[in-house]
């Protein structure tokens, strides 16, 4: 660790020979650890992608290249239906969560009121409460009030666990907000309503977009909560895929996993492009 610190101190001009040796040793250690970590993060993913093109029905012996599993996957109606369900739930819950979360962020950042500490705590809880507990609690709740589980309960749950993440993202953006721009607009005669739509919201947009992408990803990826609140015979993609991942019977699942991976990468690239574009404005 001592070497790490020397490696990180940025005064190369006056270092003596001995400490220069320590600097390069430190850098070597850092580089090695970083390379190993990235290998650890990526090797399993690449291996999975490679083996999704393997002919062998089971095991990891390479027997030849095939796209058979992808053809099978796209012909699997249940899987396609589950994927469409996921997109539907993800889209609707994101739209609702973005509105609710943004409104909450505005209220919590710009108003002072009684009981604010309570809401502060409540809106932070989903970060702290394990998903399994949230899932179980919703199962109990819906069973107790006699609500049959299905699309509506799934949607209600997804909005509930994504809203706080939108709220946290937008609120962070609001905290850095320069209010003098709004004051200027008001001085120039704009009313509060116009100021909000023409000034506040456009400036807030990068936060809203990040929040929306986060909410959408969380919704699309969620397995634990969805598994507890979805109805019988109505699956989202992760819920449909889970029993097959556990049994790992068919290489088709490797193909499906690869498609999910590509989808995630698409979302990351999209979010980076959007943020780039907005920071330029």
């Amino acid at each position: 660790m001592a070497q790490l610190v020397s490696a990180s101190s940025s005064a190369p001009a006056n270092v003596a020979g001995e400490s220069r040796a320590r600097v390069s040793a430190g850098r070597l250690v850092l580089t090695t650890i970083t390379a190993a970590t990235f290998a650890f993060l990526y090797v399993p993913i690449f291996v999975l992608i490679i083996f999704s093109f393997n002919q062998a029905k089971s095991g990891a012996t390479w027997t030849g290249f095939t796209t058979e599993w992808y053809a099978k996957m796209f012909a699997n109606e249940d899987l396609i239906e589950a994927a469409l369900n996921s997109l539907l739930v993800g889209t609707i819950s994101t739209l609702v969560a973005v509105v609710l979360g943004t409104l909450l962020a505005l209220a919590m950042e710009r108003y002072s009121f009684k009981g604010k500490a309570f809401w502060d705590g409540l809106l932070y809880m989903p970060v702290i409460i394990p998903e399994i507990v949230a899932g179980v609690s919703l199962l109990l709740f819906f069973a107790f009030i006699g609500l049959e589980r299905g699309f509506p309960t799934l949607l209600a749950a997804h909005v509930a666990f994504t809203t706080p993440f939108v709220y946290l993202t937008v609120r962070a953006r609001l905290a850095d907000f320069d209010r003098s721009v709004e004051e200027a607009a008001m001085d120039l005669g704009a009313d509060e309503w116009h100021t909000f739509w023409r000034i506040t919201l456009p400036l807030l947009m990068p936060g809203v977009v990040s929040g929306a992408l986060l909410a959408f990803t969380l919704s699309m990826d969620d397995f634990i909560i969805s598994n507890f609140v979805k109805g019988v015979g109505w699956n989202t993609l992760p819920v449909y895929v889970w029993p097959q991942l556990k049994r790992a019977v068919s290489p088709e699942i490797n193909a499906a996993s690869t498609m999910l991976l590509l989808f995630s990468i698409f979302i990351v690239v999209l979010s980076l492009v959007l943020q780039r574009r907005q920071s330029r404005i």
Partner: protein
Amino acid sequence: MATLLRKSRALQLLGLMFPGGFWMVVFFLLPLLFIVVLSFLDNERLFTLEGYQRVFDPLYIGIFLQSIWISLLTTIISLLISFPVALFMARLPKGWRDIALFAVMIPFWTNFLVRTYALQFLMRNQGPINLLLQWIGLIDEPLSMLNTPAAVMVGLIYGNLPFMILPVYTSLEKFDWTLLEAAQDLGASAWPAFFRVMLPLTAPGLLSGSILTFVPAIGSYVTAELMGGGKATMIGRVIAGQFEQAQNWTFGSAMSLILMVIVTIFALIYFRLGRGERVAL
């Protein structure tokens, strides 16, 4: 006039807070309270302490302790890996830093089920690692790497590492390196400079990363199931089992409540240490 304005401000606040606040109370807070109530009720909805009596069975105490131990160790190892990686990233030139950040972001946004499955696939008895080692001739029999507490830990580190690297990186990126030089110019050697200057100033990021790793680890279900199988049990699996196969809701609720208490204790320690700093997303 003034009262009307104040009134409208109250109305504004109501309009902003109500939709999201209502949703969070009904679909998040209320269900959690149901757990508390139902943990004291038996199947006939009569008062019972049976759930809690069972929790104190040495078998379950053991599972709780093992879960806490695995999660703590996961958090510490993740921290020890992430710090040098984040340090390396923060010292890269701008272009490379963006690429490295992108490389951490991809797993961060990638489906958790798929990533854990990819790791499990790699580590199976008939998986690529074993086949490779046998092919080289290092081993004769496949190593069994899965279904142990260590395998669960590897899975948890793998799954949650981006959640640790990103906040640690954020705090290191903001770190003013001249402070370290100043400390060393004033005669502090590398170690004290690290512990007295760098560590305290980057603590918020380290703490954020720790809580973002610890919470999913202690409530883990997917990782415990895929990497630990039936042999290395975590609380999350026991809780899920009570609502799936066993149908003992009283016991399941009691365990969920205790899990919430454990997480809350760790969160309070975290807020204490971080002086109320919020997790950076």
